């Protein structure tokens, strides 16, 4: 390995592991106009360096959903866009709309100061359509923000007749789990835990009516999504699964999967109790 490639690898590792390095996707949705282009919406999505951005544009006849991912390498950055497009192509014999779906990927390499222009409806449009087809300007920024690892979104829709949205897509590295044992109308005291994904299982003891119950819990990612749309747009990015088993028993009691949205999910235990697990984003460190 030469000195140049070695320094590049060091830069990449530093960029990926740098303390508090945040990535910001800054976008503007622009529509061509007779005099000067009109800004329909603007916003920003920020988060850790592995944050993705989900962009959705809908019109009466087309729907474009895209997931943008960034791979930083020194001063350059590779932007990958996973597109899922639906186009209205006509009507069935019974008068129902017919849509065609298309999934494809676009990849472009740019420097951090560059502006990428995304044409969600393509560039080879008929003149009448091209006059109305918006494009998206994307600027990527990175900066240091000590310790702030949560994702942030900011979006301003200036033309409310348009259906546009952006979302931050962040895959959690850890999650805050609150466990309760429930039997009838009795609930044990909440047992909050910060669990890291794919780490070794932990033993937890819950006490209900003076009777302790020992469980072994671990946090895993769910199986890959079944639908192509969910996989392409990473719709299951914030889903985690809690694997629950008894000590010294290989066969798990069950697995509870859910989004980090503070909703309690239940798992019946052989003892007759019910384990309630609430998943949430971890607090700032």
């Amino acid at each position, binding site marked *: 390995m030469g000195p140049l490639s070695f320094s590049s690898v060091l830069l990449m590792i530093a960029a990926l592991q740098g303390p508090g390095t945040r990535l910001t996707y800054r976008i503007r949705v622009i529509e061509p106009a007779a005099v000067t282009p009109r800004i329909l919406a603007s916003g920003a999505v920020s988060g850790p360096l592995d944050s993705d951005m989900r962009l959705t544009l809908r019109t009466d006849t087309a729907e474009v959903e895209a997931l943008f991912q960034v791979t930083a390498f020194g001063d350059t950055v590779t932007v990958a866009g996973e597109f899922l497009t639906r186009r209205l192509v006509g009507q069935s014999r019974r008068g129902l709309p*017919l849509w065609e779906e298309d999934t*494809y990927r676009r*990849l*472009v390499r740019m420097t951090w100061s560059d502006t990428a*222009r*995304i044409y969600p409806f*393509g560039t*080879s449009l008929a003149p009448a359509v091209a006059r109305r087809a918006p494009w998206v300007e994307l600027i990527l920024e990175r900066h240091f923000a000590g310790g702030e690892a949560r994702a942030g979104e900011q979006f301003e829709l200036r033309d409310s007749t348009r259906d546009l949205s952006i979302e931050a897509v962040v895959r959690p590295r850890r999650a805050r789990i609150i466990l309760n044992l429930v039997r009838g109308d009795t609930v044990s005291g909440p047992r909050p835990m910060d669990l890291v994904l794919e780490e070794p299982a932990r033993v937890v003891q819950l006490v209900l009516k003076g009777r302790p119950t020992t469980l072994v819990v671990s946090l895993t990612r769910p199986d890959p999504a079944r639908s192509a749309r969910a996989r392409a747009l990473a719709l299951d990015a914030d889903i985690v699964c809690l694997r629950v088993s008894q000590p010294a028993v290989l066969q798990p009691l069950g697995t509870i999967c859910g989004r980090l949205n503070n909703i309690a999910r239940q798992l019946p235990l052989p003892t007759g109790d019910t384990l309630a697990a609430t998943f949430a984003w971890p607090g700032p460190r």
Partner: protein
Amino acid sequence: MADTTHEQWLAQIDAELDGELSLVERAALAKHLATCGHCAGARASHLEVRVALARSAGNPHAFVLTRPAIRAGTLALWLVVALAAGLVGGWFASHRWGGPGGGGTLEDTRGTIVVQ
């Protein structure tokens, strides 16, 4: 054929020249031609046209003009050819332009990212 009109006599002349009249009809026509100079002239004119047509067809001594005959086999063959051509053309047109979602190529309608 006492009440036969002039137009009908002309049709009878055509039929007589084609050899399609019965003896009774031919006798009635001959009797009319003897008294009607106009019809006699028309018959002579028809005959001259037929002689010219027979000559141009290379058969100046023909008794009657042969009509172009369409044979059943030829007709069936052309029907089959036309049907096959229609099917192939329809399949090709449907494949090329048919169905909803026509227009430009798929790549034309796909999104692109351009670095400025």
